[in-house]
């Protein structure tokens, strides 16, 4: 079971690039890394997912080093609307053969964007 560690909180000014790093030292070979964003009073929303190297979409980039023991979510030019909690998730809550594995969302990283 891959445990993840993220900073509890981060502050950033509008227009800056924000990098949030997640550590997952015991990631399994077949685990993907998934990042979610959660605004107050809403459910988590999928942002990006990757397995290795770099993945980019219209919202963010995800950098994964060769050893896959960490990952970095990069948000370019943040705005006030990016203020949210960001969760790093390794693996999925269920396993294909049935049953569940305790994949914790943890408490995430609370990003506060400052004007």
């Amino acid at each position, binding site marked *: 079971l891959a445990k993840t560690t993220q900073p509890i909180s981060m502050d950033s000014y509008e227009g800056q690039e924000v990098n949030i790093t997640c550590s997952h030292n015991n990631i399994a070979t077949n685990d993907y890394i998934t990042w979610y964003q959660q605004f107050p009073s809403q459910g988590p929303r999928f942002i990006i997912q990757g397995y290795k190297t770099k993945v980019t979409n219209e919202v963010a980039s995800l950098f994964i080093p060769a050893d896959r023991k960490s990952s970095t979510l990069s948000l370019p030019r943040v705005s006030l609307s990016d203020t949210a909690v960001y969760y790093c998730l390794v693996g999925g809550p269920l396993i294909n053969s*049935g049953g569940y594995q305790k994949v*914790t969302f943890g*408490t995430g990283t609370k990003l506060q964007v400052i004007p």
Partner: protein
Amino acid sequence: IAGITQAPTSQILAAGRRMTLRCTQDMRHNAMYWYRQDLGLGLRLIHYSNTAGTTGKGEVPDGYSVSRANTDDFPLTLASAVPSQTSVYFCASSRAPGDEKLFFGSGTQLSVL
């Protein structure tokens, strides 16, 4: 708009009462989940369903039950609510049981007094 619909949005419930939280998805996803989110504890899995007709217990199942009569609906029932069940409840789904990409509903804020 495709997605997950939860109802009610919020509810205040007297302890000892029975309550069913509704969850419906229109994405034809096989797997569905119920989470509760509490301050400082993150999201914890209550129950899950790999596919219609099957359910399983998650990390914190006590006091809750679920059913999965069809693909779209996954209701969560509190048979006799207690104050410790005051929480925000999220329903989620994924295309397949092993898929890490989850889709969440907007949540139900439940207060048990």
